[in-house]
């Protein structure tokens, strides 16, 4: 097989960088992007390098960050803006190759194997990409270069981010003195649990895993053992694909509540709102789902309670009330009556909405016409053009959620 050239392009402190680039007043000041502390989304979503120098960490509470770095400027997130910039960056990257895989909002994989003749050697291309991104969006990008995706990811996370020029090339030639020396926890695919297991087997560094007996690993973890061993040895056959997000497996919505909900009636309101959102999105995507699951988290951090349960439906659906009834049923059975901090509803086992096997006992045609009409109104006048009366009670979140993406302001 031909040796591939894979890039992982990662944006430094993405949200914070976008804010700084668009507001000159923030230049040379520590900037923190954080949700609204009163609505409990007050965690650090991103911190610029200046803020990080004072010890601010992503995902910690806002008050913690502010004690470490009192002079930091706190900016409210603008999720839609970040999504737009991320798409803009994808467009830039697509000038170099058609194989761009969006891995997350601030990370994208590129397969440049076929483009080298056009644009030069990998380092030249990486520099060009960096420059173009910073000129067009003001965001500093780091690039990991490797023959496959996992190595590119490690190259970027472990080395390029610490480099002067933000570019690092990792392959078989330098793997032993670089990647193999890294602690095992830094390897892609090794989480905290796996780290503990491996350390107990005496594996501290990636290099030790690479030279470990593959038979022992497969005996213990099956195919995953072999995959880990391959990653440690720099082997990964996964192609860069633009189709990652083509096949959806589930539609789910989750919300952290502005205050703890204590009564059944209050929680019912948000389960209905979540079910509606899920149903609407399933319809937009042209899906029906066969399984509904509900996740609930208790309010008390010290005594974590909650559950995640699922139920199979009689026939696949994308109607809000079908999903709601199943969700409510699960909630009624499994809720322990303790206050609730967050709730989520997911529709899974998705299949295309058409063709659809009609059913004797449910008059889906009527429901379908109703939903079609509602979808039409939503598209034209926005998600709060019609809401259920229950969303007007104090428990309702429909209006506040309409202003947000992923629980943060647009």
């Amino acid at each position: 097989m031909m040796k591939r050239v894979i890039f992982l392009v990662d944006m430094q402190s993405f949200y914070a960088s976008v804010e700084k680039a668009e507001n000159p007043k923030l230049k040379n000041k520590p900037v923190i992007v954080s949700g609204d502390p009163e609505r409990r989304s007050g965690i650090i979503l991103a911190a610029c390098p200046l803020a990080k120098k004072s010890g601010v960490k992503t995902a910690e509470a806002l008050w913690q960050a502010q004690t470490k770095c009192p002079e930091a400027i706190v900016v409210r997130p603008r999720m839609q803006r970040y999504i737009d910039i991320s798409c803009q960056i994808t467009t830039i990257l697509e000038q170099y190759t058609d194989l761009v895989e969006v891995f997350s909002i601030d990370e994208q994989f590129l397969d440049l194997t076929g483009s080298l003749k056009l644009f030069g050697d990998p380092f030249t291309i990486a520099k060009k990409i960096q420059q173009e991104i910073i000129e067009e969006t003001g965001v500093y990008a780091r690039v990991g270069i490797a023959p496959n995706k996992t190595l590119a990811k490690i190259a970027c996370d472990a080395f390029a981010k610490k480099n002067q020029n933000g570019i690092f090339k990792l392959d078989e030639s330098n793997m032993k003195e670089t990647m193999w020396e890294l602690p095992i926890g830094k390897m892609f695919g090794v989480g905290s649990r796996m780290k503990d297991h491996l350390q107990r087997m005496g594996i501290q560094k990636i290099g030790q895993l690479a030279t470990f007996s593959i038979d022992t690993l497969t005996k213990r973890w099956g195919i995953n053992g072999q995959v880990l061993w391959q990653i440690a040895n720099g082997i990964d056959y996964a192609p860069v694909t633009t189709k990652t997000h083509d096949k959806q497996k589930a539609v789910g919505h989750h919300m952290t509540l502005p205050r703890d909900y204590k009564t059944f009636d209050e929680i019912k309101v948000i389960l209905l709102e979540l079910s509606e959102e899920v149903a609407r999105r399933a319809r937009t995507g042209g899906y029906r789902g066969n399984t509904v699951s509900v996740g609930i988290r208790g309010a008390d951090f010290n005594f974590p309670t909650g559950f995640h349960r699922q139920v199979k439906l009689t026939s696949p659906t994308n109607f809000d009330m079908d999903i709601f009834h199943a969700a409510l049923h699960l909630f009624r059975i499994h809720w322990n009556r303790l206050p609730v901090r967050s709730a989520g509803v997911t529709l899974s086992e998705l299949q295309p909405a058409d063709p659809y096997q009609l059913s004797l006992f449910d008059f889906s045609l009527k429901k379908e016409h109703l939903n079609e009409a509602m979808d039409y109104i939503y598209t034209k006048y926005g998600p709060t053009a019609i809401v259920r009366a229950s969303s007007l009670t104090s428990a309702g979140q429909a209006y506040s959620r309409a202003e947000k993406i992923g629980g943060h302001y647009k």
Partner: protein
Amino acid sequence: MKFIIQRDQLIASVQDVMKAISSRTAIPILTGMKIEAKQHGITLTGSDSDISIESYIPAEEDGIVHVENIEEGNIVLQAKYFPDIVRKLPEKTVEIEADSNLKVTIRSGKAEFNLNGQDAEEYPHLPKLQTESSFKIPTDLMKSLIKQTVFAVSTMETRPILTGVHLKLENNNLTFTATDSHRLASREIPVPDANIEFPSVVVPGKSLNELNKILDDTEELLEINVTNNQILFRTKHLYFLSRLLDGNYPETSRLIPEQSKTVIHANTKELLHTIDRASLLAKEERNNVVKLVTNDNQFLEITSNSPEVGRVAEEIAVQSIEGEELKISFSSKYMLDALKAIENDEVKIEFTGAMRPFIIRPADGESILQLILPVRTY
């Protein structure tokens, strides 16, 4: 307990009783088979608490001796081993003996097995039916009733009542109905001398499937007793008890369309084979969809299209097409099941448009009804 028994007789009975025995059961002793020896004959019992089966082997029947040297008693044997042992024994007769320590000896020719038995006193008593009222129908008729309906029960536990077949006996008419909500199968037969009536009982589909396997294809009468939570089927030597499903069976009669817009008369076999061929390419798709289009009042075009596999089209001549033109899609599997249940050479299919259920009946009568909900395609 001791007796000597004809091996073939024993094998047949053991096989019947095994249908009720499951290796996964809440009561451990139910993984065993109970053997009871009386001077007049041997009774084998198996149960998984949903279904209980008793098979009786008389000591003597029509002058033929099946069991000899009977010393009365009873024992429970591990059903995991007993059937295979009996099947593989070398001689035509088998001697079974249990001592007071629950040790069981099985002898045939020079082969001897020693098994550990369990105390029959521990075996739960089968519930006795509290009713004397019953009705009788020929065994082979019961088998066709089951075969023509039970395939349509739901296999999903999401609506447990639909996993059963609905039985109704009213005005001397017995009706079997089964539906999984996408298709429905029903058959009605007259029972002239029934002295009972019941508006609705639901028998688990699994029970009827097992019953169908055990019953012989004879015209001998099968006696049926119904209480509010159990149903009993009884032949001369067989006692088959099943629990009934709890809950209300949906009212299905009003779901059956009374008028039709397009009526097709076709040869059952030809249509079945055409659909079967079209279904070969439909299997990849989720709903096994085939499409039927009427053509010129005498032809049907059956097609199926799986974008990733390919396409099939076939034209079939039919006896007649009356009424509106029609384009309809449906599951080939449901259609095949329905056509197989029609005993007549000719079928009558009544449609009421592409989005409404359609009905398949034998051309000569109304007693069998198969209903299928179409698949909506755009």
